[in-house]
């Protein structure tokens, strides 16, 4: 009996603890978010806040309950790959004729408003015309030149187009550092994008619809690049004297900067050294301008003096420890020494923003671009300056002019090198492209050529020899996945991944805010009404039911959080329905108990009878609803699924909270020696 009692207590307490544990990040997130928005007006304070609380904030953010776009506002876009356009574009333009155009148009008309497979319909129509696909399409990379090979190539291209669109969009959207962005593949031909908190929808739309630009550019890792980087520093320092407030106090306002010579850096350094020394009165004319300062203070001043280059880490072969570019003495730097530059993942957006500024652009040499690698690298022992656990990206200097644009690529596919068995990517070019490629590769033997898509460098292989026929092989991929992505990217040159927006929804931020506020408030008030009602009508029994009811709602939301689900408006409807059913279950039970009490049973047996007789109705109605929710979950679209999820979770929990939990509570009351309990029944004289 005692153990039994303990079990019942655990039954009641454990779910509460679980719910609190799961909901804690949500509470924490809103608390931190409020703090953050309070300091957000001051950028220095914000940076400080992010440094102090960023980790906790991100942790809470990722574990909190996610609200759907209908509740928080934002933009939702569904893209579909336009297969017909893809077919049309991948056909050999010289052999396209009226017949071909007719088949394309016919297929478009047939598939416009149906969900027929476009490719299948095209092939069917094509076969009907009696022509051969080989007439219009060339297949490379295989010996087997048949119609089937063409069909397979088209299928591959169609599937690849979705991946390509996703890869491009992910890079572009990342630039905006929006939170909770969701980009996912839907079926085989669609990409779904959810962007909460979008400021300018038109910009995003443009971003989605701009076709990707693939270019081959010469890599210029030389002294000019380092000079350019330090020049950006000068411009930045001239425009905004100090980035953080501490530096502002010490920065000499009379600092004069001439940004047009490479020596400017040295001058500025000396200048700030002067400012520093006058303040600190020590280490006069020392070679290190920060000598004698506490380490932290020195670092802070260094950052202020090098607003751009402090983000870029220099690493050369044989160097013991990487260091920020700003700390390099360029006068002693050899002209063409090999080196690598890195930037921490968290600094990329800041860096790109600086590079896009007009004044910075003007100051940059016209023939040089600074671009960042698309994929992060393992942060090996590059240690010291960028913490080990952070993602790092390579910073490249590339020629402004492209050697070649990607539209000459006809095919690219991941492969394995037959001798080394390492993953590689094979690439084929058109005749015209191959000619140019031969010249380019001939000119650049032992030099590096970067593959740049949308301004991000995907790889920068060293040219081993002149490639005469356009058939190239790129090696140096760490794994097959990397090779696959590179092939997708290279194909972006061949195919413009024709995607069209088939669904677009924008929920204005004011509607989102209003919706949350009035939604939460009204839900709260209606819950309060139900709770009061149950208390009034069923007295103590109602109180027990109320506890169960609150737990039902809390656990439903907690379960949704745990599965990483999203709470939407229809989801709230599902919660309302399951709440109603939970209340109903208790009403059924209480009415039965009252009936049994009226029939003269004592408390214990009335409880027992009440629960067992109400059980069949409760299980049947809840199970029917659960079973009805399952097809809605499987075949329903967005909002219907949202409803089905919360209904399913809620009804399952109803069986637990409204039946098992309330019963345990009643039994604990009985076990404590109560012989009667007020569930609002009429007093029997």
């Amino acid at each position, binding site marked *: 009996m005692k153990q039994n009692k303990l079990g019942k207590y655990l039954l009641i307490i454990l779910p509460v603890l679980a719910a609190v544990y799961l909901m804690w990040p949500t509470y924490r997130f809103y608390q931190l978010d409020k703090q953050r928005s309070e300091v957000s007006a001051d950028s220095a304070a914000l940076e400080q806040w992010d440094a102090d609380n960023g980790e906790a904030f991100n942790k809470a953010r990722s574990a909190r309950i996610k609200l759907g776009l209908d509740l928080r506002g934002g933009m939702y876009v569904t893209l579909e790959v336009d297969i017909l356009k893809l077919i049309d574009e991948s056909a050999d333009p010289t052999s396209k004729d009226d017949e071909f155009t007719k088949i394309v148009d016919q297929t478009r008309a047939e598939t416009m408003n149906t969900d027929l497979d476009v490719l299948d319909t095209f092939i069917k129509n094509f076969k009907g015309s009696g022509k051969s696909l080989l007439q219009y399409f060339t297949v490379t990379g295989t010996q087997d030149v048949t119609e089937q090979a063409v069909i397979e190539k088209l299928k591959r291209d169609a599937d690849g187009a979705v991946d390509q669109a996703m890869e491009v969009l992910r890079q572009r959207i990342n630039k905006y550092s929006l939170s909770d962005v969701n980009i996912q593949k839907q079926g085989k031909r669609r990409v779904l994008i959810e962007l909460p908190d979008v400021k300018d929808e038109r910009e995003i739309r443009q971003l989605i619809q701009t076709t990707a630009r693939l270019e081959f550019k010469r890599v210029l890792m030389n002294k000019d690049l380092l000079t350019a980087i330090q020049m950006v520093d000068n411009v930045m320092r001239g425009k905004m004297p100090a980035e953080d407030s501490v530096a502002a106090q010490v920065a000499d306002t009379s600092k004069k900067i001439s940004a047009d010579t490479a020596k400017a850096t040295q001058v500025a350094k000396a200048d700030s050294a002067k400012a520093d020394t006058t303040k600190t009165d020590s280490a006069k004319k020392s070679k290190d301008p920060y000598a004698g300062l506490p380490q932290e203070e020195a670092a802070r001043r260094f950052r202020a003096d090098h607003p751009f280059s402090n983000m870029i880490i220099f690493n050369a072969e044989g160097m013991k420890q990487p260091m920020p570019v700003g700390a390099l003495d360029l006068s002693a730097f050899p002209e063409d020494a090999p080196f690598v530059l890195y930037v921490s993942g968290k600094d990329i957006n800041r860096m790109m923003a600086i590079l896009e500024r007009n004044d910075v652009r003007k100051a940059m040499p016209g023939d040089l671009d600074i671009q960042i690698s698309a994929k992060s690298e393992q942060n090996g022992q590059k240690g010291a300056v960028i913490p080990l656990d952070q993602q790092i990206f390579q910073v490249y200097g590339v020629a402004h002019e492209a050697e070649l644009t990607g539209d000459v690529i006809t095919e690219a596919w991941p492969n394995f090198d037959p001798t080394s068995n390492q993953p590689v990517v094979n690439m084929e070019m058109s005749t015209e492209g191959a000619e140019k490629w031969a010249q380019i590769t001939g000119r650049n033997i032992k030099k590096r050529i970067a593959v740049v898509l949308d301004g991000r460098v995907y790889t920068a292989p060293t040219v081993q020899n002149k490639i005469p026929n356009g058939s190239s092989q790129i090696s140096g991929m760490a794994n097959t996945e990397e090779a696959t992505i590179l092939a997708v990217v290279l194909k972006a040159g061949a195919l413009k991944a024709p995607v069209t927006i088939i669904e677009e929804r924008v929920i204005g931020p004011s509607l989102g805010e209003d919706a949350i506020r009035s939604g939460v408030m009204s839900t709260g008030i209606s819950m309060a009404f139900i709770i009061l009602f149950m208390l009034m009508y069923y007295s103590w029994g109602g109180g027990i039911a109320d506890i169960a009811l609150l737990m039902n709602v809390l656990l439903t939301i907690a379960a949704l959080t745990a599965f990483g689900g999203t709470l939407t408006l229809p989801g709230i409807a599902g919660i309302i329905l399951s709440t109603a059913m939970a209340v109903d279950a208790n009403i059924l039970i209480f009415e039965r108990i009252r009936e049994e009490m009226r029939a003269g049973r004592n408390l214990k047996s009335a409880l027992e009878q009440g629960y067992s007789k109400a059980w069949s109705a409760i299980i049947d109605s809840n199970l*029917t609803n659960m079973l009805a929710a399952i097809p809605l979950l499987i075949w329903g679209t967005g909002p219907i699924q949202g409803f089905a999820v919360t209904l399913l979770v809620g009804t399952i929990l109803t069986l637990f909270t409204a039946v098992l939990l309330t019963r345990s509570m009643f039994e604990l009351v009985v076990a404590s020696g109560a012989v009667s309990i007020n569930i609002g029944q009429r007093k029997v004289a």
Partner: protein
Amino acid sequence: MDLIKQTNFDFVSKRNKFFMASLVINVVGLIAVFVFGIDLGIDFTGGTQVTVAFRKNTATADDVRGALAQLGFAGAELKSFGKPGQFLIRINKTGNASEVSAQIIASLQEKFQNDQVEMLGADNVEKKVSSELAWGAAKSLTVAFIVIVLYVAFRFEFVYGVATIVALLHDVLMAFVISALFNKTGWLNLEFSLNSLAAYLTILGYSINDSVVVFDRIRENREKHKGMPLAELVNLSINETLSRTLITGAAVLVALLTMVFIGGDVLEGFAFTMFIGVIIGTYSSVYIAASFVIWYQERVRHKRVGEVKHA
């Protein structure tokens, strides 16, 4: 508190009248809906739609219509909804929603400089997607209906499964008819969209729950009072569950009514449909679901008796 005493109303004998009344309301309502037209949301029609709010409510519908005509959207459909100063603008051709909405907002703001024009939302749904959404909704609902019939038939009898569906259809249809007609008043936005579909699904769930509770009592009483005629059995069961039916209904209605009044733009329409649905659901669990079982059983029995006579 214990408001509802053990009752002994005669619900069953009046069942035909209520049955007829329900039938008439549904049929007349449906005809009215077809006469006045169903306001399908953008989800199911496809097209482009922009919702705007004039925070100071200085513009009339005609003003907005005029401004739209100047922009080249002469055929645009305009509707006011929710709070005063809120308009829903629907453009027939599909196209760039964010572009169109930005255009509309900018030009409205320019035209009504004293007011503050805000975009509440913009949607663009291609015809292809809207037909897919409609098809997906229809498919999942059909399967859900079949599952319900099968489960109820399995737990009770086949006729109870059919009766559940009859009550379901009755409830959903009547709530739909009332909402569709009510939408014409423009007080709330009650267009038939994917979101409002969730409200109908809720009604469906509530209706199942109500029917099952009454059926459960009938199942129990049939064991307890062997030999009692079905009509009497049903009447007894309805009376015995009446207090539960009314109290649950009241609790849920209070909650929903709160949402109708303070739920905000997004929840109010939704809660209104559910509110109507719960009233109808409560009524139907008394008069429709169980009555259908009696009607069906008697008809079948009657037939069987007839057959015996002929033989």
